[in-house]
């Protein structure tokens, strides 16, 4: 049975989420080292700000030393417990440390965190820190399938590495205006469109998109194999292919199959 939103670990550090819309996306789980660094940074923030507060309170000790000292004891306690709860609630699962190291607390099903989940995972730190230095929580984190300390397990949360949302810029085709000799033969172009399988077109598109990742020899080999496959579909006259490299031929075939779109990602003008 498929349970929507239920995360399932699919690799060393990934959690697959299946949405009701039938979409699957992966959450990249944070490792123990990064989480430790984020925690250490948060500890610095808490005790650093406590130190600043103490200095500030020292200046008003003349009012009532006892009350000022009591205020500091309570402030430190409230900040220690309230800091992660407040920030994770305000910043959607992030604290200062988590923000610096690109981590975020998320619901294990990919849904929006509730305040209860945040409070619960943080209050259960009282067990995770036992007997000292997060030994219980650290052991649970290492042994858990989804990298969860006890607080995360109970609150059904995970800590993930957050990806940056930057849409890559795809360069325009450098040979957009280039002449496609195959289009001079409309009946053959139509037959090519009919006979090329979706799989072959997909592989050819991938080869074009990833051409720069291939070495020179591998590129020649791949486009020769693809060119052979396209030739098996339709035989174009020799004059249509005169002077065309194998890569150029594959690109022109793709242009025909895709209905006139120039296929020239990433330096596609160069012949193989």
């Amino acid at each position, binding site marked *: 049975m498929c349970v929507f939103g239920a995360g399932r670990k699919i690799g060393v550090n990934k959690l697959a989420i299946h949405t009701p819309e039938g979409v699957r996306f992966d959450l990249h789980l944070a490792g123990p080292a990064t989480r430790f660094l984020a925690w250490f940074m948060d500890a610095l923030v808490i005790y650093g700000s406590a130190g600043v507060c103490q200095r500030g309170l020292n200046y008003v000790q003349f009012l009532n030393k*006892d009350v000022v000292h009591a205020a500091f004891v*309570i402030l430190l306690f409230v900040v220690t417990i309230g800091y992660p709860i407040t920030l994770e609630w305000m910043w959607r699962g992030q604290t200062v440390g988590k923000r610096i190291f690109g981590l975020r607390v998320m619901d294990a099903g990919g849904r929006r965190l509730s*305040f209860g989940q945040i409070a619960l995972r943080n209050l259960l730190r009282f067990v995770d820190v036992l007997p000292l230095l997060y030994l219980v929580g650290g052991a649970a984190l290492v042994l858990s399938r989804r990298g969860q300390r006890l607080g995360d397990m109970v609150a*059904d949360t995970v800590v993930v590495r957050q990806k940056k949302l930057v849409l890559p810029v795809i360069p325009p*085709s450098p040979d957009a205006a280039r002449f496609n000799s195959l289009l001079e033969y409309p009946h053959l172009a139509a037959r090519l469109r009919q006979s090329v399988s979706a799989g072959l077109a997909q592989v050819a598109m991938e080869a074009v998109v990833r051409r720069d990742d291939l070495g020179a020899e591998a590129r020649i080999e791949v486009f020769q194999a693809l060119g052979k496959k396209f030739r098996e579909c339709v035989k174009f006259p020799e004059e249509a292919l005169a002077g065309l490299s194998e890569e150029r031929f594959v690109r022109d075939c793709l242009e025909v199959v895709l209905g006139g779109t120039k296929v020239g990602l990433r330096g596609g003008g160069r012949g193989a």
Partner: protein
Amino acid sequence: MILDLPRFIKAERRYWEELRVLLDKLESAPDVRLSLEEMSRAQYLYQRSCSALTRLSGFAGELEVRQYLEALVARAYAEFHPSGARVGRIRPVQWFAKTFPRTFRKHFQAFALSLALTVGGTAFGAAAMALDHDAKSVLMPFSQLNEDPGDRVQREEAEKGDHMKGVKSTFAAQLMTHNIQVGLLTFALGVTWGVGSIILLFYNGVTLGAVVLDYVGAGQTQFLCGWLLPHGVIEIPAILVAGQAAFVLASALIGFRDSARRSERLRACTNDVLTLAGGAAVMLVWAGIIESFFSQYHAPVLPYSLKIAFGLVEFAALCVFLARAGKSA
């Protein structure tokens, strides 16, 4: 399916950007409410991005675009699918005066278990003390309790005036924070299927039983009542409520005779356990203030009868509060 990737990205890009801007807006201002029109648009953009991701999922090329879309859809999914009820305006007074006592009554069985364990521990501690008085230092590992009760009463009653002057607030703050830590630990140990909480509650009872027997055996019952009742009638029930929260949590973890998934059981009890733990913390704040400002003063500064009467009134008020508050008329 043949996908003309460049044309596809060119066509869809503006919708993705629009969704990203909308998500940025929602994340930067959690309280913002969308109009019906904006919500419809958001839903359309989300579904369109989902569709794009599905189309790209079988396509190994342009990994960056797919990763971008995955991150975008993950953000949108989290934004439009909350895991729990939206938190409305927080009303602390209403929460403590109504929600807390209602939740207490709802899970009374867990409180009864907590009480039974502490009473059991108290009986054990008293019996151990009666049978082996030399075990006092083991049963009460606190230096101030190891003193002979008679000597302590004599010393405390010799104090004249305000012997806590200048340290009362600090002492109250330390008591509050320490007791809240103990309460939260008792609650958090519920994650060990309640085993840790059982041990802690029983151990608290053992210490309490040993102290009671030590003072009663030494003929200092009046001092004991005057010393413990004003803050103990709140502090001890607060720890029991923390234990109650732990057992509600443990019950959800174990899921005895409950066919729901563990995560669903835990989700269902989250608000209740947090309410109980929070209520216990508030009670411990009160107990800390009373212990520092009231319990530490003995006769002749404060007559025992007054302290005992104060403790009994507090206890009666607590019982009425927990039993009656928040009930609809």
